[in-house]
């Protein structure tokens, strides 16, 4: 069936199945059961491995694919599942969608270019099932073929014998059951006989779930790990656009990659049939969210040989910040607030996923990119921090501020952070006024954060604590300067700073302005101005007057115009920044 015809066929099928929610639930439950067993159990190499190729019109077809889960429900075989899509673009979409699915990493997703190669790679006697569209299999036939261990007999039959059998495999739909070698010689899959189609179609809405062989196997219990003794540690530092290369070990007919949590039960993150892998190439995997962290993760790659021998190696996998890829990112909009245009621009520039923070489930699948700390952005950030994941934070810029102008983008912090050695080209283009340090000022200006900020950063008593601390170390006059609310008039900062000895704030941008205008600043260590200011209020009488040029150059490399963000220039500069040396 062509991809174009498959679309209408599968869509019609999905619509029909909506009148059988029990059937859909049974299919989903079987998928879930299979997923759990794949995640928690080591391969049982005594069972034959059957490669199942299911052609889908979109990932939504999966829960409508009854024939596929009928095979997964058979505990007497090991299933290596290939989801085949009509175009490369659709296969990429499926790979993106799969990241949020429990079966992620347990199936092979392939486009039309790779598929012939995959099938050619299979040994001629490899059991193969190809679904060319929606299908329902005859349970009694499956029992005969697989449960009663007649697989070898089935595979020795030629197609005509299967076709003329009294137990046709397909109750409804069409496809191929047999040896991979025979499939390769078949130009096109035969259309099912009219008799079979009719029988299937007429029974569709009356089918009993139990007739399909689903929901009869108890869920598998998680065994403790059986770790092989031989191990080799490998440092990984490669990545390309679509996946990360894992150096492979030789031998075995199934690869299992899992978190190394010996002796605790560990989770399988990827399973791959060796029959579907090229023998001389590394394994390409799309790392799950849990692995998108600055710290390296210890993985274990094992192969399971039919003789029962297990070969394993430890892999220390680290994804450097300079090698992050768009498929690893999710940019989060908010329902309200002013940051959505820049979040959309970021998603456009990088080519990453775009979604609302409010809709995101508890477990992150990608590196989050958020605007501000309100409207669930804070929840997303808290999740990323709790899992020690990378995250990107976008907020107003240090210079050329304002919506539609420039924004700062920082990684795993809210501000620019420690100074890296950056060229002066970007700060020069911003035309920032930098005045000499003022060393004869009198009063201290204290700028408290907003209530929102204090709540989000858990520093509700910041102003009182700061005033109390200052009282211990200075007798200078103190002026508290609240952030002017919209419509309020206030003395311009430049004027207020003319006679100031120092400015004290948490991490407000006012510290950047003050430092540029020559007023020493005292800030929280998280502030972008911390590298050229002081963070210890006991030194309020002894401010620092460092060279500001390296800091200014660095800060300018942490902020970008909306056009630079939309065109992907900002993303490239951020990756390059990660490679720059610290000053």
């Amino acid at each position, binding site marked *: 069936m062509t*991809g174009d015809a498959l679309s209408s066929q599968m869509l*019609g099928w999905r619509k029909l199945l909506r009148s059988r929610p029990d059937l859909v639930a049974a299919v989903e439950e079987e998928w879930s059961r299979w997923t759990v067993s794949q995640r928690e159990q080591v391969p049982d190499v005594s069972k034959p491995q059957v490669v199942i190729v299911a052609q889908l019109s979109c*990932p939504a077809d999966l829960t409508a694919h009854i024939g596929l889960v009928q095979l997964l429900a058979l505990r007497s075989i090991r299933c290596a599942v290939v989801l085949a899509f009509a175009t490369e673009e659709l296969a990429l979409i499926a790979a993106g969608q799969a990241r949020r699915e429990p079966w992620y990493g347990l199936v092979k997703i392939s486009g039309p270019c790779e598929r012939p190669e995959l099938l050619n790679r299979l040994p001629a006697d490899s059991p193969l099932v190809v679904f060319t569209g929606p299908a329902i299999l005859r349970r009694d036939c499956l029992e005969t073929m697989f449960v009663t261990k007649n697989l070898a007999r089935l595979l020795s039959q030629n197609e005509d014998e299967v076709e003329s059998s009294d137990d046709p495999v397909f109750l409804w739909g069409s496809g191929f059951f047999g040896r991979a070698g025979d499939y390769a010689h078949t130009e096109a899959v035969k259309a099912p006989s009219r008799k079979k189609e009719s029988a299937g179609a007429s029974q569709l809405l009356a089918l009993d779930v139990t007739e399909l062989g689903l929901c009869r196997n108890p869920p598998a219990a998680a065994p403790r790990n059986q770790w092989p003794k031989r191990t080799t540690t490998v440092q990984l530092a490669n990545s390309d656009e679509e996946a990360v290369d894992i150096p492979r070990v030789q031998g075995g007919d199934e690869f299992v990659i899992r978190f190394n949590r010996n002796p605790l039960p560990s989770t399988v993150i990827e399973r791959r049939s060796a029959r579907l892998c090229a023998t001389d190439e590394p394994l390409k995997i799309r790392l799950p969210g849990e692995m998108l962290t600055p710290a390296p993760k210890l993985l274990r790659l094992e192969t399971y040989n039919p003789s029962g021998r297990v070969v394993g190696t430890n892999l220390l996998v680290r994804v450097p910040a300079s090698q992050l890829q768009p498929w690893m990112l999710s940019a989060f909009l908010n329902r309200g607030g002013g940051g959505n245009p820049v979040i959309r621009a970021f998603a456009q520039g990088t080519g990453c996923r775009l979604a*609302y923070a409010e809709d995101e489930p508890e477990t992150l699948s990608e590196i989050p990119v958020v605007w501000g700390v309100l409207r669930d952005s804070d929840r997303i950030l808290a999740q990323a921090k709790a899992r020690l994941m990378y995250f990107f934070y976008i907020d107003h810029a240090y210079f050329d501020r304002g919506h539609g102008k420039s924004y700062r983008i920082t990684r795993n912090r809210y501000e620019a952070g420690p100074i890296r050695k950056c060229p002066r080209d970007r700060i020069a283009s911003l035309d920032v006024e930098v005045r000499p340090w003022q060393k004869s000022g009198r009063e201290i200006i204290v700028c408290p954060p907003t209530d929102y900020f204090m709540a989000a950063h858990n520093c509700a008593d910041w102003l009182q604590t700061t005033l109390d601390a200052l009282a211990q170390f200075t007798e200078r006059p103190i002026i508290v300067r609240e952030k002017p609310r919209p419509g309020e008039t206030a003395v311009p900062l430049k004027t207020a700073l003319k006679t100031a000895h120092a400015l004290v704030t948490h991490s407000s941008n006012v510290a950047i302005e003050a430092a540029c205008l020559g007023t020493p600043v005292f800030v929280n260590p998280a502030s972008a101005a911390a590298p050229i200011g002081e963070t210890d209020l006991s030194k309020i009488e002894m401010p620092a007057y460092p060279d500001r040029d390296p800091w200014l150059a660095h800060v300018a490399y942490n902020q970008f115009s909306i056009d630079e963000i939309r065109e992907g220039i900002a993303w490239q500069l951020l990756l390059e920044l990660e490679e720059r040396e610290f000053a």
Partner: protein
Amino acid sequence: MPEPSILLCGPAAQTEESAASLDLLRQVGLPNAVKYLVTTGKFDSEGAAKTVNVEGDYPADTAYLQTLLRWAEIRDLHDPRFRDGYDLYCLRRIIARFKGSDYAVLLRNGATAFERQWPKLQKSIRGRLFQTFGRSTAARGQVPGKNLIVDLKDERCADFLDAAWELYATGAVYGINEYSLDFALGTALDALRVERMLRQAAERASPVSATGTQQAADVTVLVSLTS
């Protein structure tokens, strides 16, 4: 016989497109045509059309359409598979909100030609549910997509629009080898036929009604769809 009422939808996926879309709507002078400019932000249409901000309630669907495009590693927001899906989303929103029209028209180009062709279009759509007209959407780039007229009086209309939207929302349109709006909408209509035939076959399967002749007729169509 009263003039049929027309719901005229001018979609603008970006604020910059709003003025051009409004210009198109202005050019249509048909009686009983209610004009809706669908924007992504505030825009003053100066009374020439009702303005609807489709992003006003922060829908997840439009963000997801963009995500599908990016997962497919396509940067161009003019890609017809994205843009047709987005415009179809706008049209469905307007149809759901402003009920009672006889026809819905997604107007993306050639307003004067549309007005001129309207009597002919009205005749040709009879019994067809939908029809596209205007310039081609096949080429990628800045070319606006074809216009679309949908017969809202047809009882299949709601199911058809749902099925069409599902093709875009699930990413299935990226699996169509030679994509066009016509082909996608035709696929949606085919899906309705497939569903109907399967359902009818199942309903006829009772021991009394399942005659060989009847089943043979069903099966002929089923096989043609699967081959």
